[in-house]
């Protein structure tokens, strides 16, 4: 073990550089890159890392750190830059916390304790900070893995490709900006002067740390773009801080390389310049700290404006979702089901059904007196409440006023849309904007469409189940297929950013009995197409959801597919034809008209399979084409696939997807692979 001697080991220096740069890098570099050149930010970031590595190699190998020792201006700039970056990181952390953990918190009150913590940390000295980095390193790694794992689930490669579509000038400018914001000159020399051990090892550790932190930032950028997640903080602080950092970096680089200029100058003139004189380091620290605080105040202004906007946005039903509340747990009402509909005459209608948490406490004091089943515990409900208003913001206020407790939407199991909402593009967009304003509804829930009033669906059962599956089973009289999506996924489909169509259940209750009557698919404009049975079934074949479904061919033969898995490939044949290859893997059985299986050995033979494939080919071609033509519903994500697989054609039709769709035909091929159960 290293005995305290004011020096750090190369390994400590590695984790120190990694943690200090990764923290700020993850939170701000992707934002800058995304803002300046979209998905091509990955190119800019990669170029930045290469440039930073090259610069580090040059400095480490050719200057040896001597050029910067005791140079007052250099150290001042280095310290200033360090603090500004620190402040930027702190502001980003606080905005991140405010957006995700404490929406009701005040930015200034959140940042103050962090500043105190950082001040305490700065007192540690170099060795102490290195030790702290060694501990926090693992926390950062774990946090990165968790965040990456969480985000990668919704990853879609079409969101990050193709590359090289942004103008080269923009990419170069972005590279320059990133380079200036994250130039690690000061870290190189702070570390270099305090590291014990061999020079080669030290240099390797420095370069490895820069490379690793760069790679992690790129990974985060890719994940964030690919999954359309907004966990990367977007705030006006980043451009402000970046601007200041760029100015400081430029001066720093001038000073850094000015050493060599001065040397040349001295050789030529023969006099020593009095410009660079050594000075006490401590003074620099305090001056830099002061400058950093001024920066923080400058940065706070846009943040606070953001916060005000956000607080204004909070005044709606959805904004109060996700439990970001400071009331006690028993003083909240937990919404289990929520319905939204719109009527021209009455305006918005919102129904909520809350869990009854005021029931008697049983003998052990730990729960309700309800019966528990093996599939989950029953939850007593309070009954449906309805709120109506023209303005959704006023509606939210009324909801808050009427409800005795603070409403907590973080446990919503089912969200029911009325057709009045989903068939009205404008209203749907208003709702989407509200939904976008909060972090909620990332929990998986059932998003369903009610053909009639959502109220009947919501009120269909007094007792709800804990698990989503049980819940919806109870709601419906039969066991139909269920589309278990997150609201976030649905929103990303609806706003077109992911260009992904989302399917929901359609529930009808007009005859007094609530049942699933089919499904619908949203297009990117927010409107909805209710699917007929055949279309529903065929899309299930593509989705791989068609387990235990029954297909009736035009010849009247009925087939049941069991335990189906599928493999769908899409080929871009030319600009008029798309090849769709579906391989259904499962057990196909012939059944009677009554739905019963025919005989004991009723597995479909090759002829039967061929017949079923023909039916799928014929139907699916027309279904896909009509969906693209009529509604612009890109169910196969054809346009996104095109962007990757045929870049020339994608560029040709860029921004004119509908024009492309009109000329497109589908050449569907279907195979069935019988699989034993």
């Amino acid at each position, binding site marked *: 073990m290293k005995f*305290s001697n004011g020096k750090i080991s190369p390994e400590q220096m590695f984790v120190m550089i990694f943690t200090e740069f990764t923290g700020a890098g993850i939170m701000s570099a992707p934002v800058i890159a995304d803002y300046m050149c979209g998905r091509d930010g990955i190119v800019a970031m990669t170029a930045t890392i290469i440039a930073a590595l090259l610069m580090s190699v040059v400095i480490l190998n050719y200057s040896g750190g001597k050029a910067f020792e005791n140079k007052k201006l250099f150290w001042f700039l280095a310290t200033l830059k360090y603090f500004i970056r620190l402040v930027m990181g702190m502001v980003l952390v606080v905005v991140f*916390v405010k957006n995700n953990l404490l929406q009701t918190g005040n930015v200034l009150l959140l940042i103050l*304790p962090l500043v105190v913590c950082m001040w305490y940390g700065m007192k540690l000295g170099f060795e102490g900070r290195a030790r*702290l980095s*060694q501990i926090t390193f693992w926390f950062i790694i774990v946090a990165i893995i968790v965040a990456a794992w969480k985000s990668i689930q919704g990853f879609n490669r079409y969101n990050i490709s193709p590359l090289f579509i942004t103008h080269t000038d923009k990419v170069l400018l972005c590279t320059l900006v990133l380079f200036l914001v994250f130039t690690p000159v000061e870290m190189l020399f702070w570390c270099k002067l305090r590291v014990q051990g061999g020079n080669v090892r030290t240099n390797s550790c420095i370069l490895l740390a820069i490379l690793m932190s760069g790679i992690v930032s790129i990974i985060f950028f890719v994940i964030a773009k690919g999954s359309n997640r907004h966990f990367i903080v977007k705030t006006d602080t980043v451009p402000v801080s970046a601007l200041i950092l760029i100015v400081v970096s430029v001066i720093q680089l001038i000073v850094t390389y000015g050493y060599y200029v001065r040397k040349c100058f001295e050789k030529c003139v023969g006099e020593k310049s009095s410009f660079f004189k050594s000075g006490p380091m401590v003074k620099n620290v305090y001056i830099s700290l002061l400058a950093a605080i001024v920066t923080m105040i400058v940065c706070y202004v846009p943040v606070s404006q953001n916060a005000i906007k956000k607080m204004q946005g909070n005044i709606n039903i959805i904004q109060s979702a996700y439990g970001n509340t400071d009331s006690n*747990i028993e003083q909240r009402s937990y919404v289990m089901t929520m319905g939204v509909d719109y009527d021209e005459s009455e305006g918005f209608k919102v129904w909520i059904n809350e869990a009854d948490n005021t029931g008697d406490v049983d003998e052990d004091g730990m729960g309700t007196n309800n019966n528990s089943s093996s599939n989950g515990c029953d939850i007593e409900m309070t009954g449906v409440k309805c709120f109506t208003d023209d303005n959704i913001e006023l509606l939210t206020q009324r909801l808050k006023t009427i409800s005795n407790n603070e409403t907590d939407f973080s446990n919503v199991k089912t969200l029911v849309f009325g057709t009045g909402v989903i068939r009205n593009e404008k209203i749907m967009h208003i709702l989407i904007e509200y939904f976008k304003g909060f972090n*909620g509804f990332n929990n998986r829930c059932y998003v369903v469409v009610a053909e009639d009033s959502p109220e009947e669906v919501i009120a269909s059962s007094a007792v709800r189940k*804990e698990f989503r599956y049980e819940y919806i089973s109870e709601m419906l009289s039969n066991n139909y297929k269920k589309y278990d999506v997150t609201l976030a996924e649905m929103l990303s489909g609806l706003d077109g950013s992911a260009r992904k169509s989302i399917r929901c259940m359609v529930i009808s209750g007009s005859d007094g009995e609530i049942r699933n009557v089919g499904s619908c698919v949203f297009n990117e404009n927010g409107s909805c197409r209710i699917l007929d049975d055949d279309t529903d079934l065929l899309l299930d074949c593509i989705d791989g959801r068609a387990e235990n479904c029954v297909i009736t061919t035009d010849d009247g033969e009925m087939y049941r597919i069991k335990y189906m898995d599928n493999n769908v490939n899409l080929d871009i044949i030319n600009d008029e034809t798309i090849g769709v290859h579906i391989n259904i893997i499962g057990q196909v059985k012939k059944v009677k008209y009554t739905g019963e299986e025919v005989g004991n050995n009723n597995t479909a033979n090759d002829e039967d399979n061929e017949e079923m494939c023909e039916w799928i080919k014929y139907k699916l071609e027309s279904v896909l084409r009509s969906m693209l033509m009529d509604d612009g519903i890109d169910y196969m994500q054809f346009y996104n696939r095109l962007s990757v697989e045929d870049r020339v054609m994608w560029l040709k039709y860029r921004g004119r997807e509908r024009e492309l769709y009109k000329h497109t035909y589908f050449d569907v091929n279907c195979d069935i692979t019988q699989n034993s159960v």
Partner: protein
Amino acid sequence: MESVSFSFDKNIDRLDNIFKNCDDVIKREFRTPGSDKRAVAYFVETAVDKVTLENLYLGVTDNKQVYTIEDAVSAVMIGDAVIVCDGKKEFTQVKSKGYPGRGVDEAENEQTMRGSREAFSDSEKSNTALIRKRIRTPELKVVESKIGDYSNTNIAIVYVEGMARQQVVEEIKQKIKGIKGNVDSVMDSGVVEQLIEKRTFSPFPQYQVTERPDIAAMAVMEGRIAVIVDNSPEALILPVNVASFFKTADDYYRRFEIASFTRIIRYVSAFLAMALPAVYLAVIRYHSELLPTQLVLAFAQARNGVPFSPFVEVIIMELAFELIREAGVRVPGPMGSTIGIVGGLIVGQAAVDANLVSPIIVIVVALTALCSFAVPSEEFAAAFRIIKYLLVVLSALWGLYGVMLGMLAVLIHLAGMECYGFPYLAPQASGSKEDKKDFIIRYPTKHLKRRGMFFRR
């Protein structure tokens, strides 16, 4: 220093004057065997046993010469006998067994499933002997000195020469030297600990305390130093790091799998002892979305009718538990179980029945208490007990963000701490790969080939 006079009477007068009103100091006159000269023995009544006295008269005693009055008085005070002989310009100090004390008992606070049952006693001499018994080499050095202007307490620094870093040994010697003349009396090693620690205002202990000679011997063999104070049944071990407080003797006596597993449990326990109430408070107050629906509703129902906020509830219950713990320590042994029953069952159950607190918080506090007891070092666990309240306050203010800030502050504090030049967070921070083999996971003994992390390099 006042030299011994050639005059027998003058010496007697001087000593009589010093021991005036000290009725426990016995003065016994006799004639020396053989030469038949006048002699007077001074000794503390119970410190010198009959055998020593008989040998004293017979002249067959283990003795040494004393040339000053101060040394003679000091010899009497430490429990030896001093003989003043006519015609001699020096006194004779006769070694005795010293003051009465406990024998070697069984360890009470650091019990193990395997290994020695011996514990340190109150005598510094026997304590150093217990270490010597385990490390029988002349390289084991025992450097004695005295501290306390009035108490003249013996203090011994025990280390293995060649293993302990000399710089650390010297620093400890200097610190102990610094105590001399600044303190009237030292009654226990705890006083020494507080007098020589570097970070006075840190809640974390900077010395490991043990009542087990095998632990002390193991520490000494790691290159660390044991400080043994007379009248104290515990040895101070230094330098320390965080890992030192999570190790027990059992870890080395049992197989590595179970030793590693129990160590992991201890680390997790330490975290929970510090953060569980704060995390509970944060989750139910700010982040209930983290909980499954059924659990949220169970928590909400359990809290129905409780008049206090969760913060007050946590504070009340934690303080109540501290009360029970303090009372349990103070009450006589046989009544200890009564306190447990009264505190745990009656008060807890009654508080829940009276709707003063929710049953959940009783579980949280009980679990926190259990976790704090799982940390082997009571001093170290006590630091977590204090920090727990800070985290609870931060959690009430800012939820999990507050808890994270608090933890960060604790980490920063620990990162800045050093114990005699060794980082407190070692071996995770500043440690080598070899050092980490005996950190959270204890490698099989065969793989622990290198000496301890404190070994002089």
